[in-house]
């Protein structure tokens, strides 16, 4: 018998090949799905991707000052620092005209920038510009621009000011990232350590990590038993206890932080009780706040719910029979817990740990208030430069490093635990 295979295409009722029709329907579905998520996508792009992109751009951008002093910077690059102590006459000359003819506001912005490279630029340039404008007004042509500058202010004969140009002469620059880890450029443009007295970013970075990791660990140690208790109590008790977890969660951050100050200070509740009990003497009151310890304690309490809640939701669905079965098969309770129960809570531990760590690393208000002498984290410095010095390049670099570190942690986490193993509830 012969089997005939129809070579004709399958057609739908309106005569279009089935394949094509299916593809069309699928395309329509895809489009519909895309249109449904489009507003969210747009929202994410506008509120998330663009600001982060803008921030990362700012961290390497020095174009503003390069447009203001383009000639001066070009001439500056020709300066042979080994041969001449001071830049050549052309550098002074182009600076003279760029200050005399430049837009006042653009120069104003540029000198805010210059002041990050070396303190003192701001008023030096302002004073000099005033004098230069007078010279131009009189219509005098200086014989030597170099001498004119030095006559206006002797700082123009100080090569250290000129060396700081190295930090600004390229439109795309890594200087802000170097500044964010206590480094700067020397007179040859090589990376060197910042002046010893003002080195503090590395210490702050280390402290930020240390505090974040400790807070995560403390939250886990404190949160695990609580979550376990909540998950295993009858619902009416656990709901009541849950209120105690959630109530602080809903209370204002500032109120909780201030409450910790009241508790922890030297004349505070805890020290008072310890003295009353005779554990410590009246002179030996412990300093528990306005330092790193205060930051650790307050942050642990504030971030604790972020650990308990995911742990609780994971633990609740672990069947109680598993532990019983393990013990039935001969495991001691500790072994059963270690081999059977704990592995099942890993998704909750991961979720809570990641959540607490991410929140802790960028924490700002609590460390600012209770941190005192050595408890401030990197977030405080981002806020300081954002508001006070307007050094947004450095802010962006600090933020960029923070973002980078988060991505590294995320990658590590994915390698070790696997991102599919995360569960928020």
């Amino acid at each position, binding site marked *: 018998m012969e089997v005939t295979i129809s070579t004709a295409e399958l057609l739908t009722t309106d005569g279009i090949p089935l394949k094509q029709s299916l593809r069309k329907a699928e395309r329509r579905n895809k489009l519909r799905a895309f249109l449904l998520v489009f507003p969210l996508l747009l929202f994410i792009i506008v509120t998330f991707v663009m600001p982060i992109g803008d921030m990362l751009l700012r961290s390497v951008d020095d174009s503003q000052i390069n447009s203001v002093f383009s000639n001066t910077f070009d001439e500056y690059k020709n300066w042979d620092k080994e041969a001449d102590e001071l830049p050549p006459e052309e550098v002074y000359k182009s600076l003279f005209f760029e200050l005399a003819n430049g837009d006042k506001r653009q120069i104003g912005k540029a000198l805010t920038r210059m*002041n990050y490279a070396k303190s003192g630029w701001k008023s030096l340039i*302002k004073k000099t510009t005033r004098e230069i404008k007078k010279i131009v007004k009189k219509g005098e042509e200086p014989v030597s621009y170099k001498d004119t500058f030095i006559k206006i202010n002797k700082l123009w004969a100080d090569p250290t000011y000129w060396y700081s140009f190295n930090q600004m002469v390229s439109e795309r620059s890594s200087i802000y990232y170097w500044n964010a880890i206590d480094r700067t450029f020397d007179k040859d443009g090589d990376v060197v350590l910042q002046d010893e007295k003002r*080195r503090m970013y590395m210490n702050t970075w280390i402290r930020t990590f240390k505090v974040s990791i400790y807070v995560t660990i403390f939250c886990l140690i404190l949160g695990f038993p609580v979550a376990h208790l909540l998950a295993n109590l009858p619902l009416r008790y656990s709901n009541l206890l849950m209120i105690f977890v959630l109530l602080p969660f809903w209370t204002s951050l500032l109120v909780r932080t201030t409450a910790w100050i009241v508790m922890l200070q030297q004349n505070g509740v805890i020290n008072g009780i310890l003295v009353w009990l005779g554990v410590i003497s009246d002179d030996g009151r412990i300093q528990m706040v306005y330092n790193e310890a205060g930051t650790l304690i307050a942050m642990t309490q504030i971030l604790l719910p972020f650990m308990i809640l995911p742990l609780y939701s994971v633990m609740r669905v672990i069947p109680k029979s598993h532990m019983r079965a393990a013990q039935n098969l001969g495991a001691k309770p500790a072994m059963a817990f270690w081999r059977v129960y704990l592995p099942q809570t890993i998704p909750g531990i991961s979720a809570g740990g990641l959540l607490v760590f991410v929140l802790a690393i960028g924490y700002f208000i609590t460390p600012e208030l209770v941190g005192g002498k050595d408890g*401030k984290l990197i977030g405080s410095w981002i806020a300081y430069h954002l508001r006070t010095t307007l050094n947004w390049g450095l802010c962006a670099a600090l933020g960029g490093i923070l973002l980078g570190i988060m991505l590294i942690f995320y990658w590590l986490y994915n390698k070790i635990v696997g991102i599919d193993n995360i569960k928020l509830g």
Partner: protein
Amino acid sequence: MSKFLKTFLFASLVFAPFTASAVTVASWGGAYTESQQKAYADTYSDPSSIVFENYNGGLGEVRAQVESGSVTWDLVDVLPSDAITGCDEGLFEDISSEIAANAVPGPDGESMAEDMENNGLEYHSGWDCCVPQIFWTYVVFYDPDAFPGEKPNSMADFFDTEKFPGKRGIHTWATGIIEKAMVADGVKPNAVPTVLANQTGAIDRAFEVMDRIKDDVVFWSAGSQPLELVKSGEVIMSVAYNGRVGAANLAEGENFEYIWEGQVLDQEYLCLTAGAPNREAALDFMWHASTPEAQAEQAKYITYGPMRASGIPIIKAGEPFGPGGVEIMPHMPNTPDRLAVSIVSDPQWWSDYGAEINERYAAWMAN
């Protein structure tokens, strides 16, 4: 359309013209803005046209508004270093000619600038964009009950932990502390800005003095904290904003004493944002808020001193000037005898060196 929505739309149509013309003033909030409301807005010809909004200081938000072209703040209340930077960068509009023409002169016909110079101030570029408000100071205060014997009365005492053992409260940034340390080291208060600006090693000297109390310091970062610290006995004396101490004394029945020597006066300005939506109305309010009368009026509600010298006689003539018949002059930071032992903080120097010194200060705190 629901009834609620209709009412809402109708209301916004009716009120839109009014809200659009209101002058928005960004200021520091709390008791300070309350005093501005009472002294400047309530005495203005059209009080409802002035709306205060709180911010945390600095130029970050102003720069964001101006750069993005969506300016919502007409006026901003700023520190002098921010007035300088904002004016240099064009975040604030240069209105020097309008100030010269329209600012209300003093009683003897002196211009506003002259009136400020009579108070010991020097011109800086912030004056081109801003009008003066008040002097506030970093002052050391203590609870006299904590000192049964001799009481501290100088900066040398503040930095001497042997003579007065106990903790001191200072803030987590460097402004003010550096100057006080210089006074403790024997520099005449009025000479401190000059020494800082011209003497190499002056900063090192200040840090050496600060080392003396380092192990006995509690660092605070919010203006309300020093009062709590002193009240609870956590520290025996502390640096604070004088307005906070004055409020505690006048309104809360506290009995704190000041150490006026080495107080560091800082200034406060009202500046016009570049591209302010209600420029003309804002300017008019600026002229009103910078009159000697309005500045003196503010002293009724907070113990900050007028930046125009001619404001002081108005307070003196009106004593008891405070609410409930309280004498205000004992709490004013800028009386002549107090100015003689004070430092007027140099905003230009701080805007040059502030970032570097604050980094060094942070390193010093943590080590």
